[in-house]
């Protein structure tokens, strides 16, 4: 439970999954939650968007061979709305992505993603549309998400990005898994519990 690898900069090719209000049921359909581990979830990512009912591929950008190995996902606003399933960010991460660039993020998703070191940064609408178009046009375009400069760079063009400061700090210092720090506060936790009238075993 020591500090995790800091997430300061993510650089790599990208996949665009455009559209607003992409819900976590779409990111990982519920039937893939029937498991007692998160292993193998990368294959479940956007499963029903990628596969026809007969199992054949629909030609989703995630299946574009030219984009194999991409580490940045570019999407729309309110990404990750709906169900609290952590399986959604787990699947994105296990499919190789280390950063998601979007217009905004649903809160539970954002917290879950940050907690596992998946950086979610926002761009202004016009910049996001520009980046999305350029990613769609060029599968070799390298996108860099820089959490120190709070910028997204791609092919010589830069965009101002944003993210809540608490999440940014946690990622760049490698303290995004809060458990160690929460455990440090156990004496204070017991004090708060007692003040709330709860019986506290020593």
């Amino acid at each position, binding site marked *: 439970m020591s500090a995790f690898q800091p997430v300061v900069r993510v650089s790599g090719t990208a996949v665009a999954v455009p559209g607003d209000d992409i819900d976590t049921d779409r990111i990982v359909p519920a039937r893939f939650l029937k498991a007692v581990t998160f292993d193998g979830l990368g294959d479940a990512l956007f499963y029903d968007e990628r596969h026809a009912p007969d199992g054949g591929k629909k030609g989703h950008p995630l299946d574009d061979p030219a984009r194999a190995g991409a580490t940045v996902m570019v999407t729309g606003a309110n990404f990750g709305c709906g169900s609290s399933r952590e399986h959604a960010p787990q699947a994105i991460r296990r499919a190789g992505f280390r950063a998601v660039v979007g217009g905004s993020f*649903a809160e539970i998703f954002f917290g879950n993603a940050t907690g596992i070191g998946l950086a979610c940064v926002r761009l202004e609408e016009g910049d996001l549309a520009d980046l999305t178009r350029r990613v769609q046009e060029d599968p070799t375009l390298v996108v860099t998400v820089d959490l120190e400069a709070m910028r997204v760079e791609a092919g010589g063009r830069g965009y101002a990005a944003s993210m809540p400061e608490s999440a940014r700090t946690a990622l760049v210092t490698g303290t995004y898994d809060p*458990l160690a720090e929460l455990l440090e506060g156990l004496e*204070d936790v017991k004090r*708060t519990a007692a003040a709330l009238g709860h019986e*506290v075993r020593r």
Partner: protein
Amino acid sequence: MHDRPRSLLDKVWDAHAVRTLRSGQTQLFIDTHLVHEVTSPQAFAMLRDLGLEVLMPERTFATVDHIVPTHTRVEPFEDPMAAEMIAHLRRNVAEHGITFFDVGSGKQGIVHMVGPELGLTQPGTTIACGDSHTSTHGAFGAIAFGIGTTQVRDVLATQTLALSKPKLRRIEVNGRLGPGVYAKDVILHIIRTLGVKGGVGYAYEYAGDVFDRMTMEERMTVCNMSIEGGARFGYVQPDETTIEYLRGREYAPQGAAFDEAAERWLSFRSDPGCRYDDVVEIRAEDVPPTVTWGVNPGQAVAIDEPVPRPEDVPESERAAVAEALAHMKLEGGKPIAGTPIDVAFFGSCTNARLSDFVEVARYLAGRRVHPRVKAIAVPGSERVKAECERLGIDRVFKAAGFEWRDAGCSMCLAMNPDRLVGDQLCASSSNRNFKGRQGSPTGRTVLMSPVMVAAAAVTGEISDAREVFGVGREVVA
């Protein structure tokens, strides 16, 4: 100490703030942690890997709801994964000494039904669960929200979470709801008005005389869908209705301790003049019986309105409207009423409480489900089921042609065998109409109140319950 007027959110937050973390977030104490079989096994495994214990096992309560079959309770369950996940939960709660409401205990049910029924859900408390509809418990004036599995681990190990305090929006609904307009319509209308991302970054405080007059079960329906409007949680302030609901419940304080607790609970009400980041006012008279037409809960219309055409909406939304219409196989500009349905689902943590069944039974008595329609009624908990059976409500549903099921989440998210097939269209009392939500990637969901589900079941098409059943006419008569 607190001269400044404070909202309920401020008061609950302040009382539960353990300390400020280095990131600036708050380490927040969680009074009540609810656990179910789908989002917890990995959390218990992480705890085991780290060699950690459950810090306060008496503050965690578990049940099975998501994956449990509702057509039979005979074990082993047909689905081996369902059996395995439930076995994991049984093992985990036994190992850590966590109270568990198992199938057949008489207390099992959807976790958001169980908490209130047993009196675990109390005003002024913090409640977390690995399920986004934990917002339901806000009906009691609790700060209650969904969390991910790693956070389930955090609560198990420390009884706290690292969180940022949201902004607060007061949503006032005043006036008189029209006949045939239910709590479900109120929240669908709010989401339609503010949008599915309107609540991101906010908590919602539902206020005004419409909420004051609502029963606890109606308030739960509203708070349940806060998350569908983007708000991680929403609450109604505790009042006499809240206190009377909790009196005598198993886990509520008893005797003199109850009166003391009640006084404390009321002290959490927002102070007059407290600060809101935003205030929205809605006239009750403007809330129609509402149904969704698209693939998120904000894509909704009044039952007597046409479905929108892409050209009717701002350019930025056109593609989304076109995509939703294509998935739903609906034509813009045409009325939603009259759309044939294949399945009627009456259940879920939004609307499967006793009052929902009582209300539907009033209208369903003597009616028959349309021959084309598969109709299932899934009580939210074993208690609701037993109470319905005591009142003879099950017989009304069975006589009408509904399948009468055991308690669980069922076709709300289709993790058990209850699911749509192909592009079936379902009139559903649940909370999400996302693509694929009800178990078929091409399945279609239309959200509505339970009485509207019954109307659709009877006529075989999306219908105005006011016309089908004369809902509300008895008020005028």
